């Protein structure tokens, strides 16, 4: 398989293959289906954001919703993220289930105060929950440059009261967005834009919501645990056959939910393999890998027979030019080198 980070067009990844029941559905269509089905199911659910109505959203995630549900439930807003998130908070506090779109997740910084100080703390301070979702395209790999490629998860993972979800597959994009909409607390839902049209699953329309807080074991193995999430899942799966050839059978965990992350599944796997490598696209310092490494060290030290390694982006902004962005992103090659180093212990 080609490195997905440098592949050009036509490349799709799937876990469910081309056979079996259901309809082949892209990650993007899975997001749209989740919105559509949740709005059908629950009249409290509505979407708001920039260009989400007639235009159907910058990435077309809300296409068709306006025609079906009308302008009161598919609300085009001013270009103002603080107003979008603030209004979503208020509506949630009065019993609705808003889904706010950030056109690019980078712009969520404009609503940082509303998310971290208002939404996150409201239940704790006042007992009134804020059941809303703020969703948008996250991540790099499409040459979006410093302001259309960021991975902002840790600002929110670090804020008690928020949940953070980052699906890697089309099936999870749908089932976990449904679960996020039904959740009673504020959820930051990070859709990886590189995956929108590149990954697909066979999905049965109308299938129910998944469960937040549970990692998925995407590949079982006994030699080494790779903990990852988002688009990097596919990088880990790409590297797996080469590791197998080396006699290092990797177990690959897809966290899916970053807050609360599934400590039990990670610890169980590390206790089995004795080796832990964390792979993420977010930058290195105080990335989720640091938290996972600290937890594994506290709670599974006796089972480890090597250092906990991290393969991450460097501590830089995300550059624009393809060779620079390629240098920034972790890839199968850097992952293989780290995994082989760890396997020598």
């Amino acid at each position, binding site marked *: 398989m080609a490195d997905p980070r440098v592949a050009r067009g036509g490349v799709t990844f799937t876990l469910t293959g081309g056979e079996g029941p259901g309809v082949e559905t892209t990650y993007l269509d899975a997001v749209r289906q989740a919105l559509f089905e949740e709005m059908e199911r629950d009249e409290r659910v*509505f979407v708001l954001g920039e260009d989400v109505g007639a235009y159907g959203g910058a990435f077309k995630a809300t296409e068709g919703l306006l025609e079906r549900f009308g302008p*009161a*439930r598919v*609300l085009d*807003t*001013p270009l*103002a*993220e*603080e*107003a979008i*998130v*603030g*209004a*979503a*908070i*208020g*509506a*949630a*506090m*009065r*019993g*609705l289930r*808003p889904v706010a779109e950030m056109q690019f997740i980078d712009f969520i910084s404009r609503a940082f*105060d*509303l998310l971290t*100080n*208002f939404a996150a*703390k409201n*239940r*704790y*301070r*006042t*007992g*009134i*929950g804020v059941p809303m979702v703020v969703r948008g395209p996250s991540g790099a790999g499409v040459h979006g440059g410093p302001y259309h490629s960021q991975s902002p998860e840790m600002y929110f993972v670090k804020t*008690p*009261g928020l*949940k953070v979800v980052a699906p890697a597959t089309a099936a999870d994009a749908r089932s976990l967005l449904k679960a996020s909409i039904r*959740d*009673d*607390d504020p959820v930051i839902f990070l859709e990886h834009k590189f995956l929108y049209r590149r990954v697909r699953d066979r999905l049965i329309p109308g299938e129910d919501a998944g469960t937040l*807080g549970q990692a998925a074991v995407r590949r079982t193995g006994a030699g080494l645990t790779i903990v990852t999430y988002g688009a990097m899942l596919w990088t880990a799966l790409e590297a797996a056959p080469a590791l197998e050839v080396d006699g290092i059978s990797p177990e690959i965990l897809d966290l899916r939910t970053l807050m*609360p992350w599934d*400590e039990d599944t990670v610890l169980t796997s590390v206790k089995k393999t004795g080796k832990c490598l964390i792979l993420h696209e977010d930058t290195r310092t105080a990335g989720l890998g640091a938290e996972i490494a600290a*937890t594994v060290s*506290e*709670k599974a030290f006796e089972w480890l027979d090597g250092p906990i390694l991290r393969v991450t982006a460097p501590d830089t902004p995300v550059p624009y030019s393809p060779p620079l962005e390629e240098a920034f992103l972790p890839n199968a090659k850097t992952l293989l080198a780290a995994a082989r180093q760890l396997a020598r212990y």
Partner: protein
Amino acid sequence: MTTSLPTERLEDLYRTMLLNRLLEERLVNLYRQGKVVGGLYRSLGQEATSVATAFALEPGDLLAPLIRNLGSVLARGIPARDVLTQYLARATSPSRGKDANLHFSVPEKGVYSPIAMLGTLVPVVSGMLLAERMKGNSVVGMTYLGDGGTSVGAFHEGINFAAVQKLPLVLVIEFNGWAYSTPFEKQSAVRTLADKAIGYGIRGEVVDGNDALAVYEVARAAVDRARAGGGPTLLECKTYRMKGHAEHDAQAYVDPKELEEWRRQDPLARLAKVLTESGVLTPAGLRAAHEEIERRLDADVAFAEASPFPDPSLAFRGVYADDGIAERARRGIFTGGL
């Protein structure tokens, strides 16, 4: 005297403003005794703005005060003891000790807590009103911002959103001349903050914020207009902050002559004068109201002081709907027996 308020509501208006002032005097005493755990934010001289604006709302309407709008929450039926227990950080307080002062919500009474970051209530209350409109309810929302708060970005984004959506919002700009120690000349180049309404295509009004009856009339008109679909109003009440930013602040930066001028504009004295001159209340009636409020406050202060502090285990609860999330994260933390 010109007013649309009936006699019993006029009496109630006076009593609520008086309660605002006397409750705050109790809080000052408790603060000096070291019993107020955090800061104390005074509303002396601003009682008419808070109470008379909130008086314009109907049951079922929404109100989101700022830290100096003690009178607004009292006007919405929040009992004095809830405010006392909040300041004293007791388990019996509405936030159960998790937050301070007026940072509490009582949704049954349509009262929603501010946060310390100013301006954020403008988009949030707008979202509440959006929700009520989607549910088919005729609900008006009122929130407050100081002159300093109008410099914050969330004010602009929120009022613009409310204007575009024609939401039934009354945004009271409580102009008291100071943002902590920063005078208005350093805050904005406009003379009248209500003029900013033009920039949002909404109605702007200015009123003497120390004239309770005038404040009520203009607030009532804004509430009625909002309910009738006329959209938001920026309602600027010109008043004056008679004390420092909080009780620790001796306001050395304020010209004493200016304070003396405003002392002559005291809103409670002005209302008492109008009501006695027009025969709504007698001097004996004023004294009786004063004594009755003091008597009730004796009991409320005793209740607050006798209330227990919250159990430490409460610190770990209520972060999420599922308390297990915070609990799981605590596993392995050295908690010293908690």
